[in-house]
């Protein structure tokens, strides 16, 4: 209905291969970015930043990471929580060891540390496939959590076993600690999320991304074509863990400010991120964002309605949330196994064909 595609023709492969080949999509993309960067900052307050936008962005990064591994490369992982913990603890160690380092460097370094750990736990993927691999990644989850719990070096021997983010800045703007403003933390997360989404898009559109998808769709044929399965899988583990590590780093340092490993990065986190990409859409960058938005916003909304609106006890609302999340997962898998992203694609195709049905 909104699409007017006549005259939007491509004369070069650059134009043809761009992320949004349709004019209207391009336009919409820029509008969303403009709103995020230019409009939202004016409305940023503590609630909006900390209950909505920052968790959304942080979880979106984590979802992007898992989507690269699971959605694009087909390797199911249940160790996301553990890898996020690696990112968080790496951040903590780096922040405390190098107090002068700016936050960008900190989170990127944390990402690389996580990527290394991810590769380590990805090694069995060459031999182990499918569910076996999924269960194997649980080993990473439990082992890492146990490690961060039991080895005091990781939490600098703090009495509580917690880690707390000290105040750090970038270009003089405070990003972490109690003095960080919602605006600064929001923009910081936004920039990181947008940059990583851009990187994810670049990686998935080219040679590497195709090798991942080839492994996912038909590993034997991929090998025949020259794809080294080990390289493809490990690179997916590395890139995915990098993203997840950055998300863990942000979650701890910017969003929460403090973390306790079993509460913050438990197995439920792994499942939650998995849900995000199922609901959002496997193998879709857009889907990672939508899925994250859904999983972050739905509890907020439920809480507002049930607790705030109807005055129910919080534990009841929490149980109801479980029912709804579980039910939605099932409904999604039945109605549209490819998630919201696929629904958006279908809707877009319908709008492009409008008023025709096919």
């Amino acid at each position: 209905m909104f699409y007017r595609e006549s005259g939007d023709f491509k004369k070069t492969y650059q134009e043809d291969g761009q992320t949004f080949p349709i004019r209207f999509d391009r336009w919409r993309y820029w509008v969303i970015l403009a709103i995020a960067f230019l409009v939202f900052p004016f409305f940023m307050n503590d609630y909006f930043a900390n209950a909505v936008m920052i968790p959304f962005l942080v979880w979106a990064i984590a979802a992007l990471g898992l989507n690269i591994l699971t959605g694009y490369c087909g390797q199911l992982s249940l160790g996301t929580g553990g890898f996020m913990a690696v990112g968080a603890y790496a951040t903590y160690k780096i922040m405390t060891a190098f107090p002068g380092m700016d936050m960008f460097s900190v989170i990127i370094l944390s990402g690389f540390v996580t990527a290394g750990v991810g590769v380590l736990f990805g090694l069995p993927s060459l031999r182990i496939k499918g569910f076996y691999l999924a269960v194997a990644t649980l080993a990473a989850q439990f082992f890492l959590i146990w490690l961060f719990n039991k080895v005091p070096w990781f939490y600098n021997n703090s009495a509580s076993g917690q880690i707390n983010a000290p105040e750090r800045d970038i270009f003089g703007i405070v990003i972490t600690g109690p003095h960080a403003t919602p605006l600064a933390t929001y923009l910081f997360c936004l920039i990181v999320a947008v940059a990583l989404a851009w990187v994810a898009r670049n990686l998935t559109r080219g040679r590497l991304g195709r090798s991942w998808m080839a492994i996912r769709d038909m590993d034997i044929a991929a090998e025949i074509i020259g794809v080294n399965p080990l390289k493809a899988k490990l690179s997916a583990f590395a890139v995915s863990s990098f993203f997840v590590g950055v998300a863990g780093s942000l979650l701890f340092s910017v969003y929460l400010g403090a973390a306790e490993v079993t509460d913050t990065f438990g197995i439920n986190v792994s499942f939650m991120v998995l849900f995000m990409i199922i609901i959002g859409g496997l193998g879709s960058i857009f889907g990672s964002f939508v899925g994250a938005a859904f999983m972050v916003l739905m509890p907020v909304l439920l809480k507002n309605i049930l607790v705030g609106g109807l005055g129910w006890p919080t534990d009841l609302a929490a149980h109801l949330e479980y029912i709804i999340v579980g039910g939605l997962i099932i409904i999604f898998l039945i109605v549209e196994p490819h998630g919201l992203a696929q629904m958006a694609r279908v809707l877009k195709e319908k709008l492009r064909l409008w008023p025709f049905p096919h």
Partner: protein
Amino acid sequence: MAANEITQPYPGPGLDTLPKILLHNVRMYPNRDAMREKEFGIWQSWTWTEVADEIERFALGLQARGLKAGDKVLIIGANRPRMYWTIVAAQAVGAIPVPTYKDSVAEEMQYVIEHSEARFVIAEDQEQVDKVLEVKDRCPAVEQIIFDDPRGMKGYDDSFVVDFEAVQAEGADIRAKQPDLFKQMTEQSKGDDISIILYTSGTTGKPKGVVLTFDNVIITSNQVALLDKLTENDEILCYLPIAWVGDHFFVVQAFCAGFCINCPESEETVAADMREIGPTYYFAPPRVFEGLLTNVQIRMEDAAPFKRRMYAYFMDVAKKVGIRKLENQSVGFMDSVKYALGNFLVYGPLKDALGLGRIKLAYTAGEAIGGEIFDFYRSLGINIKQLYGQTESSVFITVQPDGEVYPETVGKPSPGVEVKINDDGEVMYRSPGTFHSYYKNDKATEETKTPDGWVYTGDAGFFMSNGHLRIIDRAKDVGKFNFGKMFAPKHIENKLKFFPHIQEAVTFGDGRDACMAFINIDLGAVGNWAERNNVAYASYQELAAHPEVYNMVKESVEQVNESLLGDELLSHSQISRFLILHKELDADDGELTRTKKVRRKIINERYKPLIEALYNGDDQCFIETEVAFEDGRVAKISGDIKLVDVKTFATDANVAA
């Protein structure tokens, strides 16, 4: 009718040939796209400078290979830039390009090659080269075949079959030595030199080669380009056969106005390519518009009820105010709002989906177009106009001026054209576009063109009170009923063909007491209907014989009869009986021309028993016919065909059948 003034015959002073205009455009628009072709997934583009360079190298190469002024160059292929370049390159050498239809079979091609005495053949690909080689022995004049697509051409005789690029490379060598040679060559020819020979498919007999001069095509094209205010910013899609005058006319207009010619990727992708390019200027014969509309209707029938209602509602709005809006007449405020809403919800997306989203001007010609079809497009805000023309007139004879567009007329004489009706009711014209002659056929030339330059069109028509010409039918097709009234078959057939489920119709009545009809159903539309109504069928024949289909067609025929009632000239031509043919009329079987016009003579002969049965009042008739498949195999189709009576509507003048 007096001729309107010709103010500016050429796009610029002295620009009286295409090669000259080409070089002019290089100066005017060096970096604007002159041509595009969808190939390898993107629109490969050539600016005017690049096009001139390609043409220059090819022309020099052709000359080096022995092409001389006055030689014929046969061009056979699809709408590809190189085919168009060949036209201009040949003209630059002083030779005469002869484009032919690429789907013609070897024998048809042999005739053209033989008749035109072409020395050079430029063929698109292996398929076309093979066709030429097949008839080579019977065409001794052919010296070289130059091919565009090198695929599969490895094993061919290099001395006889040459790569387009190889010729261009030779041309490039020559240019290196004589940089000004091409320019000098282009100076050699003048406006009254022969520019092209176009073979008309002709509904009867062998094709005739229509010889056109540069003046013919350039003056005509330029007049219309000025009239329609075409500029270098326009875009067209060339998808009609290059051998057809309409397509050539486009190319010349593109040269005159400096706009861009777009070539589709392949025949199957025309619709998609059209949507991508979104031409601003468009030409299509009525059957294309009809096909599009049928397609729209079929697709809308599959839509959800809500969408169907919305579509119907806004199409009503469009019917009411669309045309008035197009013609800048005043429209009520509420209607304006509704139309704007409709434009957002329906017309805009619809036009966009059809690739008509950017159309400023569309023409249709070649046959009469159904008024409903015509109004449909106009009500959507597409400025579609009818023109009347033929190869012999370099297309334009009459055209509908803006604001004076009536579905049933073909408009007023275009600039520089005089039109008159002779005593037999046949339309005649005299214009700058009047053809030079029929190639090697003086007899036909004399029969068609009077010494003082008037040309018989072969169409019967008359001027209406508003000065518009109305064409009734082919003069020779127009017949008389036994009771003395006029019978104009095509007029009735066009009315029938408006119905989406009717693909083709043939009516009979000349020398008879009543009008009868053959119907071809539209497999797409009726098939769709069958699917939705769970009607199983295995073949066209089976579907065509289905009683429900008969009922559907019968209703349509009755509607046509009712509409004929209002036209006093034709009210007695109401169809009294019809049948649905067991096979589709097909060009491969000789029943249609390559441009899908009905060959009445062949149909009269082949289906004689059916015609007789219609007039005898039989209920059923057995028929057996041969069909030719694409690969040349021949099979027989036979079956009993049902004949049906239809209600006719009485008028005072009507003789009850």
